[in-house]
């Protein structure tokens, strides 16, 4: 029996799920059908194309730059290796 003997918890759980799911459906109908990236972009006032941060050159600009990704990943890997050797858990 995967559902245990106590029913109170199950009722609370299902009630919570019903409320949460109803709110999610209302929010989805209000926001419209779109993917998560586009939803973020819309929520923050961006257009359908570029997301926030891309038109402003003030921040980090790694997105889409393969060399930067490889460089950062290499630094992270080296850092993790050093930390692992130094602070082995």
């Amino acid at each position, binding site marked *: 029996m*995967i*559902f*245990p*003997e*106590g029913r*109170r*918890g*199950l009722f*609370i*759980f299902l009630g*919570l*799920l019903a409320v*949460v*799911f109803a*709110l*999610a*459906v*209302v*929010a*989805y109908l*209000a*926001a419209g*059908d*779109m*993917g*998560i*990236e*586009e*939803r*973020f972009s*819309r*929520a*923050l*006032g*961006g257009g359908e194309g570029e*997301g*926030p*941060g*891309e*038109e*402003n*050159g*003030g*921040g*980090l*600009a*790694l*997105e889409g730059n393969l060399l930067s*990704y490889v460089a*950062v*990943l290499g630094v*992270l890997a080296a850092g993790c290796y050093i930390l692992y050797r130094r*602070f082995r*858990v």
Partner: protein
Amino acid sequence: MAHVHLQDGSFSLFWVVVWWAAALVLIGVSLLILRSRKTDQKKITVAAFCTAAAFAVFQVSIPIFGGVHLTLTPLIGILTGPLTGSLVVLIVNILSAAIGHGGYGLIGANTLINIVEVSVGYAVFRLSKPLMPGLFPRAGIATVLGLLCGNVAMILIILVSGIQGVSQDMSAVLGGLSLIAAINMGVAVVEAFITGLIIAYIGKVRPDMLGSGGP
């Protein structure tokens, strides 16, 4: 499934450093506490499996509510605890950023959000045991509340940081983010069922894996 789905450059360098530093402080504290304890090989194995599973589900878009993904962070919290769980979510976020799922600069913020989910999931699962002995509803409720807190943390982090190049005022951004959080919680329903079933099954075949939170 709270996760800041924005590109690098969305947060200013100052806030990238702030969230990274905050995440590293928490990770550092976790490491120090873990080092002071006896190494639990079983927990490390479970954590490794959790890392692989969480990384995989992070990349799978579920075609509901426009396409979303699970995180399994409350499950990680229940199975490994908040200390080991914080290391798991850091690794998952680094690997996800490496394949373009969230920017490198947002790893700190996303790790903090996921640590909130891991910790709340763990705490609710453990603390609600006297009220609800059943594993399925307890794990499910821990998942819903963990993900709810994660979404609140996500909204707070974005509002505090601000987004570069955004012209909307704070109330409009808050409204948009609240919609995202509400839709995310719809997916939390799916994740709650999955987590509940996994924990109920583990409680049946390997109750020792759940520690004091078990049946």
